């Protein structure tokens, strides 16, 4: 696990990733446990229908029908809890990637070896991507396995598609955090800016049907790429995948350039 910067970074994140994985499995288990009582309560859907439209847009993407497993998971997990969990991890991992080692003063030790700064950024990026995909995979597997135990049957391929889009959402904001971390070395800033932007992007996408300005810029919101096409029903939208991957690639390139140009904090 000490063979290169990527494996070393994953090793450092081992406990964090394990804790996140267990938490996600438990969150999904909680939703699965509640499912039977929700299913037998058709009034839940009425409740959502009676919500003010703005409120409904924020918490329930598109037309969610709480009486089906797909609609239930859409509202309960994919609209809010899932993205929050994945984003907290990916933004933290991205922000800590370069700035974290500088805060702990270990960057001098790392870079005194014949390792290029570009390689360090690439390895840290790869670790963040792998971690994010791992968490999305844990969530997806939990959904399918734990769901099947309580008759909350979800189509595996659609779950996989939704998790792919969820992971990409995390990777986009994680890459932004990484670019800020590599370019500035300030961990707090690198964590805060993507977090605020994620909230804004969420609101823009959710309230687009209601607010004209948001409607015009909705497509630049990474949340649009993530959920607007309803992946749990429609599967993978490859154009959205491309947009997300392209965004991450541009941010990664900026991270490499930013880190190669600046002084390392000692």
């Amino acid at each position: 696990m000490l063979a290169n910067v990527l494996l070393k970074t994953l090793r450092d994140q081992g406990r964090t990733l394990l804790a996140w994985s267990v938490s996600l499995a438990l969150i999904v288990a909680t939703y699965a446990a509640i499912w039977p009582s929700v299913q037998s309560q058709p009034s839940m859907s009425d409740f959502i229908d009676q919500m003010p439209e703005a409120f409904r847009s924020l918490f329930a993407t598109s037309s969610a029908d709480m009486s089906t497993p797909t609609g239930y998971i859409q509202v309960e997990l994919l609209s809010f809890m899932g993205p929050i969990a994945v984003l907290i991890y990916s933004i933290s991992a991205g922000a800590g990637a370069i700035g974290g080692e500088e805060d702990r003063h270990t960057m001098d030790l790392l870079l005194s070896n014949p390792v290029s700064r570009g390689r360090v950024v690439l390895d840290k990026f790869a670790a963040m991507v792998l971690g994010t995909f791992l968490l999305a995979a844990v969530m997806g597997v939990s959904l399918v396995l734990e769901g099947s135990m309580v008759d909350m049957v979800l189509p595996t391929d659609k779950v996989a598609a939704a998790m792919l889009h969820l992971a990409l959402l995390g990777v986009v904001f994680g890459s932004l955090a990484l670019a800020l971390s590599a370019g500035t070395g300030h961990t707090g800033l690198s964590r805060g800016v993507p977090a605020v932007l994620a909230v804004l992007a969420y609101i823009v996408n959710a309230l687009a049907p209601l607010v004209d300005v948001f409607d015009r810029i909705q497509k630049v919101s990474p949340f649009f790429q993530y959920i607007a096409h309803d992946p749990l029903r429609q599967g993978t939208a490859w154009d959205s995948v491309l947009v997300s991957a392209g965004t991450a690639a541009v941010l990664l390139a900026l991270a490499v350039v930013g880190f190669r140009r600046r002084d390392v904090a000692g």
Partner: protein
Amino acid sequence: MQAAHSLGSMSGEDIVQTAGLTKRFGRTTALDGVSLTIGPGEVFGYLGPNGAGKTTTIRLLMGLLRPTSGTAYVLGLDAWRQSREVHRVVGYVPGEPALYDRLTGRQHIAYCAHLRHRDDSELAARTAARLELDLDRPARTLSRGNRQKLAVVLAVMSRPRLLVLDEPTSGIDPLVQQVFHAILREHTAAGGSALFSSHVLGEVERVADRIGVVRAGKLVAVERLQELAARSLHQVRARFAEEVSVAEFAGVPGVRDVRVDGRSLACSAPQAALDALLKRVSARQVEDFECSEAPLEETFLGYYGMDTAGTGRPGTDTAGTGRPGGVEAEAGHAR
């Protein structure tokens, strides 16, 4: 190792060469036009008070900082643009050695060895044993001295051509310092060079061939340690059987602070003046004689003390490094 040597032979004789190296942070100038060279097999003692620019120089050489202007070359490689190639042939002990808290010494060695694509664990283990460092404890449980030792192990294990040492012996007890000095001597005996920074002369005078003094970002003097020793003043006292006069001794070139009180004489003289002075003294009937050398630290402060302004002697820096053979010969002698 072979690769490192071929790099060296292509790059001329200087291991380190900086020219007008300048670093500004915002409006503060941390380093101002530093030009220095370090030859093969040479230990360059880099002295200055804290905050004078020692660490800035070192981090520029390591490619961790980008020069505002000027250049730094290590074995002919640009320290900023070719830092990865530079790091292949350089071992670095940072000023405040930061380690990975959860990794043991052995794991640090494994990680660095992997990053260097060479297995240096055997030399690392031997060096650690000499320094009496336990490699199986996680870094967070190590004392400051032990962290320093681990940083030294990591720096020397790849048999680098150049060691860049930022106050490497601070926090290490004197016995271990001796081991460290021995390791450094073996390194130079094999042709390796070193930049050794410190804020006290005593720490480097036993190992350095030349001393550079940096103050407020400027390199104010570069001295061959031997020459500094030669200029160090000796305190001479003598008591004669009869009364003497100031004029008899004041005329000797180099002799200063001549004080005569009846039959006794006190004066200071550099090494070069001792012979002439002794002859004058022995022309009289001597009852008692005493000659003691002032500690190097005192001499040094006398020349470059905090109150001394100015830029020192610009010529002395380049004087020695043009003849690496001479440097090595003198280096051996200085120790």
